[in-house]
């Protein structure tokens, strides 16, 4: 279970990285078209329709898909200057508190994100740009990403309970 979940976070993280590369490729293609438009007007189509919209949706996808992977690799930042002054036995309780409160909030957000997807699906919402995109598609990626973050936080709490030692606090590094 542990390995399966960690695998899942990492795969989604890799997908997120792929999306960032896709944004890069898409925008670069548009720059090349801009260049051609200058040198040989009319030789190629001058725009990739709705490329700004597509970049935006890919960015949202990258952000949400990477949430869990980033959490598990300690990438989300927190202030640990205060709690690092306590003994590890006390830090465990602070971490438990932080994890529980995060489980509550992220669960809440994930729940309503899912209901946002259902609403878009129900009304058949589409984007406003040149190419209409059904909004439930990028939105479900977002909802999935938040749900996976929730799983990752619960997973981290399970780690904390199992090891009974701080799992979040890492000493300062330079």
């Amino acid at each position, binding site marked *: 279970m542990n390995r399966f979940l960690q695998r899942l976070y990492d795969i989604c993280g890799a997908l997120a990285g792929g999306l960032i590369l896709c944004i890069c490729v898409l925008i670069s293609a548009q720059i090349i078209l*801009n260049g051609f*438009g200058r040198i040989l007007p009319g030789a190629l189509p*001058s*725009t990739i*329709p709705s490329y700004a919209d597509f970049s935006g949706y890919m960015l949202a996808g990258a952000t949400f898909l990477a949430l869990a992977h980033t959490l598990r690799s300690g990438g989300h930042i927190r202030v640990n200057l205060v709690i690092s002054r306590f003994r590890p036995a006390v830090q465990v309780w602070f971490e438990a508190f932080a994890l529980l409160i995060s489980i509550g909030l992220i669960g809440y957000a994930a729940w309503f994100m899912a209901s946002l997807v259902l*609403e878009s699906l129900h009304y058949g919402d589409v*984007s*406003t740009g*040149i190419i*209409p995109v059904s909004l439930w598609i990028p939105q479900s990626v977002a909802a999935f990403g938040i749900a996976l973050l929730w799983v990752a936080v619960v997973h981290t709490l399970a780690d904390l309970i199992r090891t009974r030692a701080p799992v979040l606090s890492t000493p300062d590094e330079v």
Partner: protein
Amino acid sequence: ESWDMPTPYGDSTFHTQNIIQFADDVRAATDGGLDITIHSAGSLFPHSEIKSAVRNRSVPIGEFFLSTLSNEDLAFGIDSQPFVATSYEDAAKLWEAQRPVITELLAEQGLMPLFSVPWPAQGLYTNGEIATVEDLNGLRFRAYNAALEEFAALAGAAPVQIEASDIPQAFATGQVAAMITSPSTGVNSTAWDFVTHYTPINAWVPKNIVVVNQRVFDGLDADTQAAVLDAAMTAQARGWEMSAAEATDMTAALAENGITVYEPSEELVTGLRAIGATMLETWNANASDSAKAVLEAYEN
């Protein structure tokens, strides 16, 4: 009762001014019973999210640019179709034809239109005078929706997607050389910094719309409902006048700041109208029955 109302444009835009007045009217008519707080400039929700925020009752009321919904149904976007309605009279007639249809369409989403106010008619900004459609040939032309992209292509220009905020820089660096927008937007973005010529071709008269959530509205008592509808009617009438005054003032402001304002030549108008007619054919081919009904009601 207090309502929060998101609007997409800044406080100095006449649309926002009009809505502030609308909120004051409602407050006065209900003796403070209904207090509407305006959150302008997209400070509560981004423009693209305002409609769904009203729909799911995050907020009871909101404003947005009507033709952003044209991907849902072309009936919403007919006011942004080039050379269908080019004067305030025609625009008013078009809104009359549009209103029952979009009232029905919005009702499916639990929304009720309160009032709709047009932007000044859209003119053409370029460097140098444009005498005929051929002069647009090969020009890099700002397009921000499907209709404009088609328009640019038909005029032989090269459509370039530029977000509103990037306009000055895009002109300064030669990324674009021509755009169609209202004289208000031209003044607000100090168009004289980057273009020399403006001609009021009055390509189309797009509108903003204010919608209220039906269930929230139904929850008001009858007197308050009447006060809101009453204030909405006043706001619509006032908004159209403000828009007409704005068109005159802003065109004058363009000229004052050194832009050459010229009347479009006969040839240019004819050429543009021909493009408009071609585009309307495409539009008709894709239009839903409701959208066709709007056009039919408008043309008769």
